[in-house]
């Protein structure tokens, strides 16, 4: 049963299975295990970024193409919800309309980018997505009457999902069951469903073709698969899921701005999550997102402490300033591409299968 739900793509390593189970349990029980606004926020962000990182992994790890426009689709989703909710007032119809409009826009843009760039060389895709994403970011900050510019948009969601709504009269295990908790479990359900669908996609015949293209494009073409079509489809699916992740984020935060969903920093975060977790394994996206989000939430505090400790040396203090968080992320990123190109999942699986690999050598 479990095997069927996971599309027969099992963790294939006992420590990995344990880690995944711990993550899943932690997320499931987060409102009760880690009470407090900040901890719940971190857990919700993990849920959102699992979908975002997994959809990016479909492109990077399974299809072998690099896109720098992934946060653009993420942003489109978030802005779709934000703009619709702001214009039409809080309501389910606004959410639905915003979602549809965002999905439509994302699909159109992804198709256009794919047609222009994937026809020739996968390498163009990286450059063109970078250009398009940069243009879109400028566009979003220029049309400030629609997008709120740099300030972003604060909006309201249906009252059922706010903390003002009490669902049960009495607290359960010391936690008030309010709309916020409901919203969290809604995100959990959506995130799980989307992740399982992605797992289904990469383990389908379609997913196998993508991996074949990644490993040997020429050969895949020779066997008779239209490489362009498969790559474009993959980027479409990935854009779709990124848009959905953006919607989840907007509904949770009830705010959206360039820094929360559109900025290049988020692109970097997603890259890092996928690389740390392990490219080409969707489980890597789960672990990567969880590790990264926890680190981001609590390591910045550590940097602040370090900056204060090194105040005597201004140069060092500048290096450890919490604003320079991205510097350390970048270093970590380069090092992980060098030393652990297969990420956590890849390493764990390698250890689990060592006797077999030794024999096959």
């Amino acid at each position: 049963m479990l095997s069927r739900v996971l599309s027969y793509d099992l963790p294939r390593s006992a420590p990995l299975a344990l880690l995944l189970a711990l993550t899943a349990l932690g997320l499931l029980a987060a409102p009760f295990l880690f009470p407090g606004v900040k901890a719940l926020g971190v857990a919700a962000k993990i849920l959102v970024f699992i979908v975002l990182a997994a959809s990016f992994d479909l492109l990077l790890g399974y299809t072998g193409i690099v896109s720098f426009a992934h946060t653009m689709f993420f942003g489109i989703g978030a802005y779709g919800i934000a703009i619709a909710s702001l214009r039409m007032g809080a309501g389910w119809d606004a959410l639905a309309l915003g979602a549809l409009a965002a999905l439509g826009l994302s699909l159109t843009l992804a198709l256009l980018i794919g047609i222009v760039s994937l026809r020739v060389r996968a390498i163009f895709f990286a450059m063109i997505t970078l250009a398009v994403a940069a243009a879109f970011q400028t566009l979003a900050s220029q049309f400030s009457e629609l997008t709120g510019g740099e300030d972003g948009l604060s909006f309201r969601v249906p009252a059922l999902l706010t903390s003002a709504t009490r669902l049960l009269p009495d607290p359960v295990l010391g936690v008030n069951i309010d709309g916020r908790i409901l919203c969290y479990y809604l995100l959990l359900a959506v995130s799980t469903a989307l992740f399982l669908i992605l797992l289904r996609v990469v383990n389908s015949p379609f997913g196998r073709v993508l991996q074949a293209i990644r490993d040997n494009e020429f050969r895949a073409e020779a066997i008779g698969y239209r490489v362009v079509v498969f790559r474009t489809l993959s980027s479409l699916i990935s854009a779709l899921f990124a848009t959905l992740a953006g919607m989840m984020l907007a509904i949770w935060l009830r705010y959206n701005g360039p820094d929360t969903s559109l900025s290049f920093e988020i692109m970097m975060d997603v890259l890092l999550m996928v690389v740390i977790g392990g490219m080409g394994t969707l489980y890597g996206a789960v672990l990567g997102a969880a590790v990264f989000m926890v680190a981001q939430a609590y390591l910045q505090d550590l940097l602040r402490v370090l900056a204060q400790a090194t105040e005597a040396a201004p140069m060092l203090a500048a290096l450890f300033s919490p604003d320079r968080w991205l510097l350390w992320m970048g270093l970590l990123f380069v090092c992980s591409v060098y030393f652990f190109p297969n990420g956590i999942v890849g390493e764990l699986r390698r250890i689990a299968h060592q006797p077999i690999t030794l024999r096959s050598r």
Partner: protein
Amino acid sequence: MLMVPALMLAALPIVGTPSTWLTLTVAGLAMGMIIFLMASGLTLVFGLMDVLNFGHGLFIALGAYIATSVAVSSGLGSVAQAMVLAMLAAGLLGIVFERLIVRPVYGQHLKQILITMGGMIIGEELIKVIWGPLQIALPPPPMLQGSLIIAEAAIEKYRLLAVVVGLAVFLLQWWVLSQTRIGLLIRAGVQDREMVEALGYRIGRLFVGVFAAGSALAGLGGVMWGLYQQNVVPQIGTQVNVLIFIVIIIGGLGSTAGALIGALLVGLVANYTGYLLPKLALFSNLALMALILMWRPYGLYALAKP
């Protein structure tokens, strides 16, 4: 090659007044020449070694920031000083960057893109540590401020200088590539690297040289771009990177002539649309690139093997 004058002529009736047209054209050519300075190194590096360097913008940013540290506003001499310093610093950084970041991942496109992008991020953050995260003004020296009036068209002096420097570098580069032995080897390497290696030349060393020279040119371009914009922000590298990618995609990866034409087209189109339809100026370059890719999927002058 005829596309550039054709575009200039086509824009004349649309813009209307000849004097405005002349101003815009000179501005476009100046912008194009600066972009060409920055793009030529990248396209050669790609052609020669199949290395796509997403960190190229870092050298541009370094050049621009060195210009802010040298007091360029004081005179022409200090501008020249800033240029030399920027070229040296960017060239050196290029050698380090090649050794640390690019060399371990030869032949693996995916990792190259990821790692050079990581290098770019680290560099940008280090620039913020050294020079601070805020915008720094970079006015050209008084001699280069203001404009000349030629045939009723106001032409900024600095733009003329940019065209002159750009042309000089282009001619020098053309001379090295087509008239010297090293240039011959570089061109041969772009066409068929293995053959050059088989003939007993160390293409690795040649490549480091090209990488350093390309980085130095990017540093020079950074000084000029900073003076052109009259200010410098830490994100300058990323911003210009986008322009450069568009240029080398249009020109064809690996082709210097293509990079020149691509850069001039991008510069001209950006200035014409900036005047005619300011709202669309952002997308003019993307649209230009899309059109050219529809027509010639490998770029205008695709030299490197597809």
